[in-house]
């Protein structure tokens, strides 16, 4: 069977095709792609999704070397995300479903991330401890099967990726600052400088707003005018350590408390080398398999949406075309995440 998936929840437009267990195409529209089809378009734009989605599908079909009539199931991200952006991909998928007379599966973007480790050759084993870390989300989950997801904790303020971007801004790095912080941190060796890790009421929750503020105070108090490059690197290093320690310590607590067989860290921040290495070490310590998707599956992509659509389809879930887009993580109905612990 051939599965098509579409992602358009935020900045990225993406189309993927999976045949049985083989990923035939996973295209994420780049700025270059945008300029090929109608000039420079703002990154964040429903119109950009609209202009790009049809040529992107054509290119994906070409890469997969199939015709549109061979597609058996069509999935698209239904939420959470920007409503205008979501509606482009979702409506496009519904239109295809109607015209091809093939089932349509609305997919939760977060669920896409959660199971993105299954896109790798070495797959997670249930029950898995799952950490979703991206620009918009920080969630710690216990995943017992494809349909049993329990939330252990979440951020009570900023997402981990957002903290990276905002500290990047404080260090005068261009948005998004995340990858550049990692680069800077690499040029610093050991440092005395440390930033505090916030305590939270729920032991599995995260908080990064205080860390962000303490980096800001450190900069204001010590470098009111300009930060020397070596100090920038030192701050980046200490900040990255603080985020890594926060993520690791919550996960370690969860490993001790719950029966799990594997750990999977997913989302854009999972591409951070330091975080990756720390989790591999953590896995070794507790003898748990660690699966971190390769970078192309960490950022927003349609491959994970297609895979999740495939899982739901194979589990027998069917949806009507009246399923709507939902902007917020809490306001959806078909999501199998049990948001209570």
């Amino acid at each position, binding site marked *: 069977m051939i599965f098509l998936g579409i992602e358009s929840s935020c900045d990225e437009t993406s189309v993927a095709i999976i045949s049985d267990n083989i990923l035939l195409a996973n295209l994420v529209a780049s700025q270059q792609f945008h300029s090929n089809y109608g000039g420079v378009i*703002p990154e964040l*734009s429903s119109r950009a999704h609209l202009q790009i989605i049809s040529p992107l599908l054509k290119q994906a079909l070409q890469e997969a070397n199939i015709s549109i009539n061979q597609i058996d199931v069509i999935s698209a991200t239904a939420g959470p995300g*920007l409503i205008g952006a979501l509606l482009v991909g979702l409506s496009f998928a519904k239109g295809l479903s109607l015209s091809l007379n093939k089932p349509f599966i609305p997919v939760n973007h977060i669920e896409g991330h959660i199971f993105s480790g299954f896109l790798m050759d070495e797959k997670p084993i249930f029950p898995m401890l799952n950490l979703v870390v991206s620009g*918009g989300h920080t969630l710690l989950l216990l995943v017992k099967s494809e349909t049993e997801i329990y939330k252990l904790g979440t951020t009570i303020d*900023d997402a981990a990726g957002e903290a990276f971007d905002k500290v990047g*801004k404080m260090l005068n790095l261009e948005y998004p600052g995340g990858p550049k912080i990692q680069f800077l941190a690499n040029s610093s060796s050991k440092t005395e400088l440390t930033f505090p890790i916030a305590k939270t009421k729920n032991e599995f929750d995260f908080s990064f707003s205080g860390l962000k503020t303490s980096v800001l105070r450190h900069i204001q108090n010590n470098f009111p005018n300009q930060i020397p490059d070596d100090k920038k690197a030192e701050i980046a290093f200490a900040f990255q350590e603080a985020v890594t320690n926060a993520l690791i310590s919550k996960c370690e607590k969860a490993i001790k408390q719950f029966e799990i067989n594997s750990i999977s860290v997913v989302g854009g921040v999972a591409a951070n080398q330091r975080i990756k290495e720390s989790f591999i070490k953590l896995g070794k310590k507790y003898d748990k398999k660690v699966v971190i998707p390769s970078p192309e599956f960490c950022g927003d992509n349609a491959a994970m949406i297609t895979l999740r659509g495939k899982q739901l389809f194979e589990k027998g879930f069917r949806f009507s075309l009246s399923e709507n887009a939902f902007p917020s993580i809490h306001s959806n109905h078909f999501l199998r995440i049990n948001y209570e612990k």
Partner: protein
Amino acid sequence: MDEFIFEISSEDDTCKAAQFLAKNLKPGDIVLLNGNLGSGKTFFVKEVLKYLNYNDVTSPTFSIVNEYDADIKCYHFDFYRIKNEMELHDIGISDYLADSEAISFIEWAEMFPSIVNNYNYLVQIQLNNEQRMIIIRKYK
């Protein structure tokens, strides 16, 4: 214009200022929040929403807008990573702000002053020499 000034020396004081605003808010209101990075804009909105019986406020920086099913529906915007005004038009900003059944909170609205002409409240969070002050201005 009415002005209300709250001197803040603890989290409790912030809660009081937030409670004051929450009691006055009605559907259709637009609230702008000004203050530097890390001044506590998102925290303030979180506290306001608590009084509207909603406890899951998080930062909208990445998502641009969060929607909350509180006692009154709320939109929580952050213009921080918006690069130009067209992006805001593209996400349908005018439709959100024209929703007479919802309250809109906007962080970093000052980046695009022409987008929000009419607003009901301006919340200014100031931090001078470790002294925090929240100024709430109510417009007629």
